[in-house]
C-alpha cells in the first residue's frame, strides 16, 4: 500500500507540488492525469528518488516511511520506473540492459572477490532476459545492442527489465505509450494489467485520456500541484479533460475554404527524394499553394518527417524543389531561412532550441542571424549588436500572447516544461516571419490545453500572414481539424490524399484504407 500525505515540493518560490495526497492499494492501477506543469512527473520523480533537494510531506510504502534520496534507494524498496525519455544504454546489449545492477555472478566468486569484481555470466543474464522478453511475447535477440532497436522495442525492453525484478512492489510509468503505435500500446496496457494481477501497485501517467479511462482502477487529476479531482471506478475521457483544464476549453478547427492548392504555388516538389536517418521518402510530386496548410500523416519511420528535413537541406536529397518558383540549392539550411522557409523540428531539445540560453535569446537569435532583424546595424554584420530593449519587448509580447509559463524573458529555456519549450520554438519561428513553415510533430508530448493553443497559433500565423504550412504529425485527429488536405506517407512514399471536411472518424477510416491499399 502506497500512501502519500500532503506532498509539497518547492523550486525556489514556485511550488511544483502543493499538498498532493494519494493512496494506491496493491494490485491497483492508479492513473495520474493533469496538464503539463501540473506536477505529475515531479510526483513520480519524488517516488523514484530522482529529485534532489528533498520534499515536505509524508510517504509510506507498505506501512513503513519512505523517503528515497536516490533511485538506488528506491529500487532497494522494490520501486521501478519507466521513463518518458528512454533510459536504455545504447552501448550495452539487450540482456545487459535488462539485468543491469542485478547481474548474475557466481556465488563463490562473489564471496572471494566481492560483488563488484565478480565476472559477468552472460549465459545466465541472457537466459533471464529471454525469460522476461518471452513473457512479453517478444522475440528480440538478447545479444543485440540496444542501439539498433526501434522505439517500441526499446520501450518493451524497459518493461522486461521491470519484469526481471523479483521484488517489484511499485511500478511508475511516465508516458509509456507516447512513442508506441496503437497495437504496441494495447499490448503494453495488457502487460500492466498482468502486473496488477500479480499484486504490484502501478502508477500511470499519460496524456492519452481514453487509454487512461480504459485502463485505470482509479484516477487522480492534478492541477497546479494540487489534487483537482479523484475518480474511482469508471470515468470517461471527457470527465478527465474537463477537470484537467479547469475551465471549459474549445477545440479549434480550420475555417473552410480559406486556401486551395490552386493558389499560386509556394513549394513545388518534383521527383523529390529525402533520406533522413530512420525516415526516407521517395517519389514526391507535390505542389503546396500559398496560404495552404498541408498535413503529412503516417506511422513513425514511414517518411512523414523526411520531407521537411530534406526541403530544409538537413539531409541528403535528390530531385527538384522550387520555392516561390525559384529552384533551391540542396543542403543549404541557411539559404532556405534567408528565402523565408523555417522548420519547427520534432525534437525541440536537440534541434529546436539552445537549451542553455534564455527565452529571449532563443526567440530572437535565429531571426537576428538570418534576417538582420533586432540588430543595430554596424559595418559588417558580424560586428552588430542586438537591440536588447526591442528583443525583450518582442519576447514579452509573445510570452503574453502564447501564454508561456516562465519567470520572464531571461529565464533559461531548459528550465521550462515541454509544452512551454515548444511554444518558445514557435515564437522563434514567428520572429523569422516565415513565408513557408515546416512543422514536425508540433504537439508531441504536450497536454490538451497547450495543444489547442499551439494549433491555434499555427492557424493564426497562416491566416494573418498567408504563410504556407506543411505539418507532419502522428495524430490524425489534429490533422483532420487543421489541414486543408492531408497526405498519407507509407513505406517511404506518399500513398494517398485525405480531404478536409471529414469527421474525425471518417478521416481515421480513410487513412486506414489508404495504408491497407498501399500495403497490398
Amino acid at each position, binding site marked *: 500500500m502506497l500512501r502519500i500525505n500532503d506532498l509539497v515540493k518547492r523550486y525556489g518560490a514556485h511550488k511544483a507540488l502543493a499538498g498532493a495526497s494519494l493512496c494506491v492499494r496493491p494490485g491497483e492501477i492508479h492513473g495520474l492525469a493533469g496538464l503539463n506543469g501540473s506536477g505529475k512527473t515531479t510526483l513520480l520523480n519524488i517516488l523514484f528518488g530522482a529529485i534532489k533537494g528533498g520534499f515536505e510531506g509524508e510517504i509510506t510504502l507498505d506501512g513503513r516511511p519512505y523517503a528515497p534520496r536516490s533511485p538506488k534507494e528506491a529500487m532497494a524498496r522494490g520501486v521501478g520506473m519507466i521513463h518518458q525519455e528512454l533510459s536504455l544504454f*545504447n552501448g550495452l546489449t539487450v540482456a545487459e540492459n535488462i539485468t543491469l545492477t542485478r547481474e548474475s555472478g557466481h556465488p563463490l566468486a562473489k564471496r572471494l572477490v566481492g*560483488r563488484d569484481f565478480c565476472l559477468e555470466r552472460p549465459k545466465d543474464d541472457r537466459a533471464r532476459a529471454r525469460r522476461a522478453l518471452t513473457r512479453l511475447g517478444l522475440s528480440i535477440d538478447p545479444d543485440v545492442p540496444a542501439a539498433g532497436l526501434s522505439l517500441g522495442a526499446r520501450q518493451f525492453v524497459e518493461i522486461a527489465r521491470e519484469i526481471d525484478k523479483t521484488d517489484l512492489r511499485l511500478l511508475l510509468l511516465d508516458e509509456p505509450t507516447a512513442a508506441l503505435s496503437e497495437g504496441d500500446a494495447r499490448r503494453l496496457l495488457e502487460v500492466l494489467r498482468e502486473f496488477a494481477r500479480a499484486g504490484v501497485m502501478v502508477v500511470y501517467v499519460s496524456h492519452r485520456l481514453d487509454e487512461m479511462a480504459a485502463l485505470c482502477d482509479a484516477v487522480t487529476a492534478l492541477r497546479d500541484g494540487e489534487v483537482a479531482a479523484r475518480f474511482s471506478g469508471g470515468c470517461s475521457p471527457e470527465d478527465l479533460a474537463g477537470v484537467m483544464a479547469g475551465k471549459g476549453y474549445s477545440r479549434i478547427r480550420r475555417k473552410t475554404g480559406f486556401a486551395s492548392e490552386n493558389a499560386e504555388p509556394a513549394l513545388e516538389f518534383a521527383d523529390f527524394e529525402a533520406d533522413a*536517418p530512420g525516415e526516407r521518402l521517395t517519389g514526391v510530386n507535390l505542389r503546396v499553394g500559398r496560404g495552404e496548410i498541408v498535413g503529412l500523416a503516417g506511422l513513425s519511420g514511414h517518411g512523414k518527417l523526411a520531407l521537411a528535413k530534406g526541403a530544409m537541406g538537413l539531409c541528403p536529397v535528390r530531385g527538384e524543389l522550387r520555392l516561390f518558383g525559384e529552384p533551391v540549392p540542396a543542403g543549404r539550411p541557411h539559404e532556405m531561412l534567408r528565402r523565408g522557409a523555417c522548420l519547427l523540428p520534432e525534437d525541440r531539445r536537440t534541434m529546436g532550441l539552445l537549451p542553455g540560453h534564455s527565452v529571449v535569446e532563443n526567440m530572437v537569435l535565429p531571426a537576428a542571424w538570418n534576417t538582420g532583424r533586432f540588430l543595430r546595424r554596424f559595418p559588417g554584420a558580424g560586428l552588430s549588436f542586438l537591440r536588447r530593449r526591442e528583443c525583450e519587448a518582442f519576447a514579452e509580447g509573445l510570452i503574453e500572447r502564447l501564454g508561456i509559463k516562465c519567470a520572464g524573458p531571461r529565464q533559461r529555456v531548459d528550465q521550462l516544461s515541454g509544452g512551454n519549450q515548444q511554444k518558445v520554438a514557435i515564437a522563434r519561428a514567428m520572429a523569422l516571419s516565415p513565408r513557408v513553415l515546416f512543422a514536425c510533430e508540433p504537439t508531441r508530448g504536450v497536454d490538451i490545453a497547450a495543444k489547442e493553443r499551439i494549433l491555434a497559433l499555427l492557424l493564426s500565423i497562416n491566416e494573418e500572414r498567408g504563410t504556407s504550412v506543411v505539418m507532419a504529425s502522428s495524430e490524425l485527429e489534429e490533422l483532420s481539424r487543421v489541414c486543408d488536405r492531408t497526405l498519407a506517407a507509407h513505406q517511404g512514399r506518399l500513398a494517398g490524399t485525405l480531404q478536409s471536411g471529414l469527421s474525425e472518424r471518417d478521416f481515421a477510416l480513410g487513412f486506414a484504407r489508404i495504408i491497407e491499399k498501399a500495403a497490398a
Partner: protein
Amino acid sequence: MRRNLVPAVFLVLCLLGTYYSRMGASFVAGEIVTRFIRDGVLTLSLVIPVAAGMGLNFAMVVGSMCAQCGLVMAVDYQVSGPAGLALILAVGLPLSILTGWLIGLCMNRVKGKEMIASIIIGFVATSVYQLVFMTGYGTVITPHNRDMMLSRGVGVRNMIDLAPFRNIVDRLWVVDICGVELPVFMILAVLAVACAVWLVLHSRLGRHFRAVAESGRKARLSGIDVDAVRIKAMILSTMLACLGQVIYAQNIGMLNVYTAHLNSDVFACASLLAGGATIYTAKVRHALLGVLLFHGLFIVSPQAGQNLFSNAALGEYFRSFVAYGAIAFALIMNIRRENLESAGRGR
C-alpha cells in the same frame, strides 16, 4: 580498415624508421621488449578511466609519485631485495588508494572536463611532492640514510642509485632467443596485469563503467551510484600507475627523484592512442599493441633522424616530435573515425 588506421600508420613509420636508422632487427627487438616491460603497466593503467568515460587520466603521474615515495623510503631505511620490494608496495599502494580516492572526488566535481582537470591535478601534485622531498626531508622527516641526502643535510639528492633493487625481478627466468634476451617472467607479469584489467572490464563493475561512460544521468536512474563508480575507476588507475612505476624504476636502476614521473603520463597516453584507442574507447589490446608500436618508433626515430638529416641534434628533436605528434595525430584520427562511425549509425 578505418578502425586500424592509426596502428597501421605507426607500423609503417616503425618499419621505415628501422630501415633508415640502420639498427639491427635483433637490437630493436631487444629494446622493444625492454620498453614493453618498463612501460606496459603504466599504459594499462589508463584503460579503466577511458572505459568509465573519464578520458585519458593524466593524473596517473600521482600514482607514479606514490611509487617513488615508496622507493625513497626503501632506500632511506636501507631495506633491499624482496623485503624492500614488499616495503615499496606496502607504502606505495595504500598511498595510491588514498590519492586515487581524492582525485576521484575532484573528478566528480568537474564532470565532462576530466582530462584538463587531471592534467592540472598532476601539476599540483608534482609541486607538493617536490616540496616534500626538497624541504621536508632533513627538517620534518628524519633521514636514516645520509648517502641519499644533499650535502647541506636538507633535501633528497636529485639522483638516487637503486642498486639494491636494480633488475630485482627482471632477471628471473631469462631466455635467450637468437641474441634477444627475453625476460619471460616479466613479460608474463605484464600480461597478467593486462589480464587483470580485462577481467575488471568484464566484471559487474566493468559493465557499470560502460553504463556510466554512456550517460551518467541514465546510470543514476538505473540505480548505479555514479560517483562511487567513477571513484573506483580512479583508484584502480592510480594503483596500477603506482605498480607500473615500481616496475619502471627497478628496470632503470636509478631514480631521478624529482622528475622521473614527469613524462610517464604523456608517454603512456601516446602509447595507448597509438594502439588505436580514443578518449572514448580503450581496450586492453590497444594498450599492449600501442606500447610496442609507440616505443618501437621512439627507439628508432632519433637514429633515423640523424641518418636522414645528418644532424645529431635533430635526432633528439625527433623524439619529442614523435611523442607529441603521436598524441595529436592519434587523437584527431581516432575521433574523426568515431564521428564517422556514429554518423554511419544514423543517430
